[in-house]
């Protein structure tokens, strides 16, 4: 119950009353717009009088919003649908939006080609413009296909009313824009697979086993079935549909286009907006109301896609990060390893500015591959070392062009012509490629690893060193945190990498630091105490860190006795900073991972902290203005320390098992500078948390990882790296130092133009990561991606990568939190969203009426995600300081895959599992995040990758309770839930689901029980993003707000 429910208590303080009052006002305003007469938007509609949107705004917004998708051409027909809103929302609120809409669309005749654009994969819409390039082509498929399209897209036109009715708007649009040539456009790829049902596809790759490296995160092996969650739905769609017949990707493609072709888009090209444009105007008339069921929402996608990274010499548009797909590296790297916010690179910097979208790369060099993917190939050039461009030092890659019978090669990054080393000569084939290109991974794969030659070694590759540092101060011992840590370490020892190069060490600390020397003939270890915590040192040169094989027994014994040894410890102080420093000194000769288990606010010694939070509270006069300072590190001490750690390749992970404020803002500096992270167990419970602690630790040490890494991203001339962000230490502008890097860490790299690209050229990015494996081999992982350049704004929108962009926005917001007030950050986030949409509206959809909110297909979820971000823990006013700091700290290194759920959680119903029959996936379809989906007799699980909240309504069948919780009443069940498996099918399923989620997220969710009528229940409800909350808009209201803002900007 820790969470402060206050804000939520009033569930709907100002519930939108009836459509009546406020609502009416909307309509009015809207009326100008397309919104039809339907007066009342849905219930939720009315923004509370006082609230956010000024009355005026109101009107504009809502209607349009929904319309958004509609934009395209949504024909008026939809109108009728309006009912949805008005009507019975309550009743069947949640249906997955998609379904309904589609029906219509699908059925729709192919004719709709045009409309296809929207709905389908983002791509669709834009194509027209360029017609030229192959790209365009693909779109058609989308529609066709099908069924799943997002509701709106199909429905589109109408604002919200989803048009289930048969009458699909299609016709309306004239825009054939896409007309582009049929060639397989970029998307071509995806579609093909789509058709396939999940089941079948994977097979092809099935053969490949998962790369050896990845250890199973939790329970099961990373299963075959990836979660198909959210956004993916959208993208995926295109494929599915259509292509029934053509499995073969390439072939198929053509077909599709054909269908479309009629469009002859070329003429139209000028209007990128095509899809919508014409209609827009027309639409206006549609008086629709916003149907909450029709507004854009992510759709679960359950099918597994096989994704070839390049097809026909072109970069393929990657599937959504959250969908399940199997990558075939055909020249570009797997999107898991590196993906760009835009899948086409703007030719000029102005274009980027105009679009409002960020240009950034998310790099996750050790991302877990799908088990069916081929492992990354290892290339050994021997003494010579990998071939590199002699000017920019870029590594050989598939995009380097060999010329002059192979005697020279031209660097794809800097354009320099290099001599091919004699040993590496090879003739070119008729296609201009080297004859051996397909045999050499470095010439045909987007990602390869090179064995580092001597020039990359400044010393012997370091051993894998794991040093454990455990808080044994009074509180730590009393709360059971010490025991939990010791037991977790003890159990995790067996997961350490095998071999003589794996070393371990341990120390404990309270107001002094206790090291242990385990290398003794005698049974008893030696305890060495460093009492000077102002100016620490290491008590032994050697023997503190030993090969695990030599000391496992004594270490286990020691771990067992530590809790009892300190049982009566009365020292309440904890010298966290000093202990880290001392441990660091012990590790200095080698570097390695320092795993710190801390339980209280560090109160003494170097880097001690004070209870700023309390001070801040008591000092109300400073008010909100200064509140964000608590989110900044209190001083530079820990930062300075962290920089030194990083210099000597020491990576720090901090496990905070606490029941009080610990100033994460200050503490997190250390892990974030050294490539580690903070794990937060608050409030620590000796009952439920040890399991998570163990699993987190185990995953921490067993996941794929590397040490003493240096990373640099190079890009083609025309762009330059602007900045890196993530958990690392940067000493020179071009490189980042990562004492450790693992599969969960992502680094964001932003770029800026320093020149222009030619329209048909490609822009390449190469990430080179020099690191040492846990087994002591020095390697360079080189990750390449080459993307086409475009000067068309509409292409940028069409090829925008929603999740990557959103991750960018989340990270930007997180970095702003410590320096600005929450409201400023929220405004910033909102305006980012608005700017992008406005740009689209202005330049790509100009034809449409001002009354419509028009969303680019690829980014149609942007408003929803933005809303979720605004309501996320980090940006809330009322959050605990530590919770917010923690949120900021994890966001800094979060991957695209996890960033979205962190902000926009997934909710599923548990009570009706038995009545369901989803063969497709273990995890049932998720529910939209609004309270209409919450029933009093239901049990729901909402998870964000970190925590799992199990909400139990107050009218739940006691038999169900009995089955899941083993007790027919929840009266005595603690909030911090330990989910047990009981002997019944339901319990088994629930456990399976939870475990599957844990596996997917590579995180052992903490489960919390939330009950209606209890603060925990209120907290749960505050996570329902679409709901209206005090001080926060509902989804519909937010769309209205966005629309109004765009309108006002346009005028």
């Amino acid at each position, binding site marked *: 119950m820790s969470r402060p429910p206050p804000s939520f208590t009033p569930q709907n303080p100002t519930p939108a009353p009836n459509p009546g009052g406020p609502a009416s006002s909307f309509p009015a305003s809207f009326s100008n717009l397309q919104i039809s007469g339907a007066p009342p938007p849905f219930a939720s509609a009315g923004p509370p009088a006082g609230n956010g949107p000024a009355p005026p705004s109101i009107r504009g917004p809502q209607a349009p919003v929904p319309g958004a998708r509609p934009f395209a051409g949504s024909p008026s027909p939809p109108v009728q649908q309006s009912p949805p809103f008005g009507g019975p929302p309550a009743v069947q609120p949640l249906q997955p939006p998609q379904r309904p809409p589609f029906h219509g669309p699908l059925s729709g005749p192919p004719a709709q080609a045009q409309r296809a654009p929207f709905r389908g994969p983002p791509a669709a819409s834009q194509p027209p413009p360029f017609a030229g390039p192959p790209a365009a082509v693909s779109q058609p498929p989308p529609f066709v296909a099908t069924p799943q399209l997002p509701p709106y897209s199909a429905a589109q036109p109408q604002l919200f009313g989803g048009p289930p009715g048969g009458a699909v708007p299609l016709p309306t649009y004239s825009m054939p824009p896409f007309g582009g040539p049929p060639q397989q456009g970029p998307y071509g790829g995806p579609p093909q697979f789509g058709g396939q049902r999940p089941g079948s596809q994977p097979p092809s790759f099935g053969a490949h086993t998962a790369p050896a490296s990845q250890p199973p995160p939790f329970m099961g092996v990373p299963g075959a079935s990836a979660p198909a969650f959210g956004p993916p739905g959208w993208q995926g769609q295109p494929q599915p549909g259509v292509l029934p017949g053509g499995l073969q990707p390439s072939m198929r493609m053509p077909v599709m286009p054909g269908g479309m072709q009629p469009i002859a888009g070329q003429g139209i090209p000028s209007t990128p907006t095509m899809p919508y444009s014409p209609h827009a105007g027309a639409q206006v008339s549609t008086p629709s109301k916003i149907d909450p069921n029709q507004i854009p929402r992510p759709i679960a996608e359950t099918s597994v896609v096989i994704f070839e990274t390049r097809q026909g010499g072109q970069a393929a548009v990657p599937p959504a990060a959250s969908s399940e797909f199997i990558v075939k590296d055909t020249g570009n790297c797997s999107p898991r390893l590196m993906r760009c916010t835009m899948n086409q690179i703007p030719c000029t910097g102005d274009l980027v500015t105009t679009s409002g979208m960020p240009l950034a790369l998310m790099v996750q060099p050790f991302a877990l591959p799908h088990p069916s993917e081929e492992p990354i190939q290892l290339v050994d050039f021997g003494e010579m070392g990998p071939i590199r461009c002699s000017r920019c030092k870029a590594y050989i890659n598939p995009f380097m062009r060999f010329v002059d019978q192979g005697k020279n090669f031209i660097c794809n990054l800097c354009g320099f012509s290099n001599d091919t080393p004699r040993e590496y000569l090879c003739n070119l084939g008729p296609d201009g490629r080297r004859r051996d290109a397909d045999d050499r991974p470095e010439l045909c794969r987007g990602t390869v690893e090179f064995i580092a030659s001597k020039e990359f070694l400044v010393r012997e590759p370091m051993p894998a060193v794991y040093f454990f540092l455990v808080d044994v101060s009074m509180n730590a011992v009393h709360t059971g945190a010490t025991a939990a840590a010791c037991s977790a370490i003890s159990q995790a020892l067996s997961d350490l990498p095998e071999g003589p190069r794996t070393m371990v060490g341990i120390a404990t600390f309270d*107001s*002094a630091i206790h*090291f242990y020397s385990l290398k*003794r003939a*005698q049974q*008893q*270890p*030696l*305890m*060495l*105490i*460093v*009492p*000077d*915590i102002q*100016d620490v*040192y290491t*008590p*032994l*040169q*050697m*023997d503190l860190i030993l090969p695990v094989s030599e000391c496992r027994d004594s270490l286990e014994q020691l771990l067992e*006795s530590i809790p009892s*040894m*300190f049982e*009566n*410890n*009365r*020292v309440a102080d904890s010298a966290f900073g000093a202990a880290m420093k001392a441990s660091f000194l012990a590790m200095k000769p080698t570097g390695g991972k320092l795993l710190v288990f801390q339980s209280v606010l560090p109160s003494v010694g170097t880097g001690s902290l004070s209870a700023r939070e309390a001070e801040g509270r008591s000092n109300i006069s400073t008010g909100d203005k200064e509140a964000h300072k608590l989110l900044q590190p209190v001083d530079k001490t820990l930062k300075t320390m962290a920089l030194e750690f990083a210099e000597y390749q020491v990576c720090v992970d901090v496990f905070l098992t606490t029941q009080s404020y610990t100033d994460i803002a200050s503490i997190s500096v250390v892990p974030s500078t050294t490539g580690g992270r903070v794990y937060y167990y608050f409030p620590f419970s000796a009952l439920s948390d040890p399991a998570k602690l163990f699993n987190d630790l185990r995953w921490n040490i067993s996941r794929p990882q590397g040490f003493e890494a240096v990373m640099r991203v190079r890009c083609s001339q025309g762009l330059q790296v602007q900045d890196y962000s993530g958990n690392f230490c940067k000493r020179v502008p071009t490189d980042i130092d990562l004492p450790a890097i693992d599969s969960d860490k992502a680094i964001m790299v932003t770029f800026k133009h320093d020149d222009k690209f030619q329209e048909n050229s490609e822009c390449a990015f190469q990430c080179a990561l020099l690191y040492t494996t846990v087994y002591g081999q020095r390697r360079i992982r080189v990750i390449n991606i080459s993307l086409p350049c475009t000067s068309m704004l509409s292409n940028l929108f069409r090829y925008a990568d929603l999740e990557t962009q959103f991750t960018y926005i989340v990270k930007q917001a997180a970095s702003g939190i410590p320096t600005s007030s929450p409201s400023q950050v929220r405004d910033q986030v909102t305006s980012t969203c608005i700017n992008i949409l406005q740009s689209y509206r202005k330049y790509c959809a100009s034809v449409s009426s001002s009354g419509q909110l028009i969303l680019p297909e690829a980014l149609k979820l942007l408003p929803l995600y933005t809303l979720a971000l605004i309501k996320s823990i980090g940006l809330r006013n009322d959050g605990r300081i530590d919770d917010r700091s923690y949120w900021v700290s994890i966001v800094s290194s979060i991957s695209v895959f996890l960033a979205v759920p962190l902000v926009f959680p997934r909710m599923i119903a548990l009570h009706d599992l038995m009545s369901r029959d989803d063969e497709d996936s273990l995890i049932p379809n998720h529910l939209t995040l609004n309270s209409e989906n919450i029933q009093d007799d239901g049990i729901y699980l909402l998870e964000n990758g970190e925590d799992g909240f199990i909400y139990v309504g107050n009218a739940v069948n006691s038999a169900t309770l009995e089955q899941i919780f083993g007790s027919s009443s929840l009266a005595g069940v603690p909030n911090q839930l330990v989910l047990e498996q009981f002997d019944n099918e339901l319990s088994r399923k629930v456990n399976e689901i939870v475990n599957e989620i844990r596996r997917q997220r590579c995180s052992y969710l903490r489960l919390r029980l939330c009950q209606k009528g209890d603060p925990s229940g209120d907290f749960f409800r505050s996570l329902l993003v679409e709901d209206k909350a005090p001080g926060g808009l509902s989804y519909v209201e937010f769309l209205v707000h966005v629309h109004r803002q765009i309108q006002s900007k346009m005028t």
Partner: protein
Amino acid sequence: MAADRSAASTPADPDGPDAVRLTWNAWPRSKVEASRCVVPLAASICPVRSPESLASPPLPYPPLRCKPPCSALINPFARVDYAAKIWICPLCFSRNHFPPHYAGISENNVPAELFAQCSTVEYLVAGAPGSPAPPPPVFLFVIDTCIIEEELEYVKLSMRKAVALLPEHALVGLVTFGTQVHLHELGFSDLSKIYVFRGTKDISKEQILDQLGLSGVGRPGFPKMTQQPGGQQVNGMHPSTTAGVNRFLLPVSECECTLSTLLDELQPDQWPVEAGNRAIRCTGVALSVAAGLLGACMPGTGARIIALLGGPCTEGPGVIVSKDLSEPVRSHKDLDKDAAPHFQKAVKFYDGLAKQLVSQGHVLDVFASALDQVGLAEMKLAIERTGGLVVLSESFGHSVFKDSFKRIFEGGEHSLGLSFNGTLEINCSKDIKVQGVIGPCTSLEKKGALCADTVVGQGNSTAWKMCGLDRNTSFTVFFDVSPSERTSQPGHQNPDLYIQFVTSYQHPEGQMRIRVTTISRKWVDGSTNTEELVEGFDQETAAVVLARYISLKMELEEEFDATRWLDRSLIRLCSRFGDYRKDDPSSFSLHSNFSLFPQFMFNLRRSQFVQVFNNSPDETAYFRMLLNRESITNSVAMIQPSLISFSFDTPPSPVFLDVASIAPDRILLLDAYFSVVIFHGMTIAQWRNMCYQNQPEHQQFAQLLQAPQEEAQVIINGRFPVPRLVVCDQHGSQARFLLAKLNPSATYNSAHDVPAGSDIIFTDDVSFQVFCEHLQRLAVQS
């Protein structure tokens, strides 16, 4: 004289029952006269010498004191009016009433302290009834681990013996150090627990206590806590509850096992020593930590830090030489030229340590065993100020270390009688001022009327602290005569002068005692009365006092030319007290009380105390510390060794300390205090090599060989530190230990008239004969 040096343990104490010897037993009354005496007015006292020899057993009641400011204790020289129950203090002539419990006093019932033979008497100071038992003695061992395995094994061996000898209730602590300092928590049973301090950083006592969780705790209850039932061994994890020092200092009975395990596991320092470098050794910090730890004991608890050092301090405070082997340890030459970069800093550090230890009342003992210097010269301050013991040897396996180390723990007959927490107060008659004290003590800076303006050694005080003292510890007190106007008027004059030494100390058995020695001497009036002065001259004491005085001056004064100063003093003395006709050297003669004095001076000039350049600063410091704390007889042996000849013809007899004493058929036994040399003449050596001593018919030869050995053993047994025994043959390399001490009456310059079988010394030094010729000539010059 020198021959009967073994007197220390024999009843016939040459220093008398009071153990006080004065350079002059008759004192001139005026300052001018005093200065004309050349040899300063000084007393060598040995405050707690052999209590067994006292005329009276300890008196179980507190002594009576004269009224302030005199505060002298009642003594046999007091005039007593039995009727009025009044005693008159001989020092200040104040009248004091006896307290009521002396009511029974009468001519026939005189308390022991008034008996004439009780000029020295001891009182037992009983604590208030019910007060805690006296605190147990504390032994905190500080062991250097930067030594090779073999040496460490010797250390362990000695340590085990020591632990076995310690009284059960004694508290023991252990600090080991090398690159860092390890303080072992003996009271923690779960595993071996060590507090580690870095060697590079000087830490204050407060910091140490803080870091050990001892600040604020421990002190008040210390003695009691140690008595706490051993029950639940509070595991030392939480200082706030386990107050204390008793985590680190445990009764031997409780920690013998732990200690023995620790010793077993003790390894040479594990920190790497780079090639071309010395081991990193942080002696300074180790001693700081030890001192800091003891700081948590109650002041007044008898505690000693026993440091076993195996090399120079190369890190942190107290460093005496850098790690780089290419830098040699400072020599006297470097010190003279101010070319010892670390010296002053180190001295300052140890000065601070000394102050701390003195304020806590704790002792620092140093056992240095190394081929190179360890920094005794720098540590001298801390050792001497606290009254610590010091032993310098070459190896922990050497008997000098082994036997000496054992001695300090032995009880019974050979006990050193180690006492703690002594305070010496001096009271004297008017007109007498105290300039200061040379010896193992510290001035308490307690100013009083009897403080002289000029200061010698530890001065400016009427009281001195002796954190540690033993039966042999002696001090030299320098006096000054400064008659006031009034008293210098004839008629008023009291013919006797009185000096009273009051020593309170903690007896080895734990109780506090006060020993009072009151002496009386005669004033000599006028300048004419040389006769009386001469009669009262003690040449041995004078020689030793001069040696101590000159050593001090050499340390304090730059550019001080000791030889010249000695020569001049000797000449002045001879001019003043010799019998001669002006300008006629041949007429020169000296009173028997002075007869040996020139020879003492001659040997002093050549001794290690003056000719320091043959020795390292460490050795010099060592020699001087012992010179300053030994009894007169022992000190004389340091200046002028004794030489005994053993031969078939004559019984063992002292012979001249001259190269001429060497003969092929003699065995010589040299006692130079620090070393004892048995020197076999050439012939004897040959016989011995041919093993005649094993043949029954040559029993006598065997006995002859045995005799000096036995004699040497007697010397060794009675001495601390144990001297080095050198057995050598004529012309052997070890013979240098003897030759260096002999008067070079025959050198290679005079080799032509050397009798066969005799020896010569390769030196350009003048012989005693030449020295005397010059002396005579100069003394008689007008």
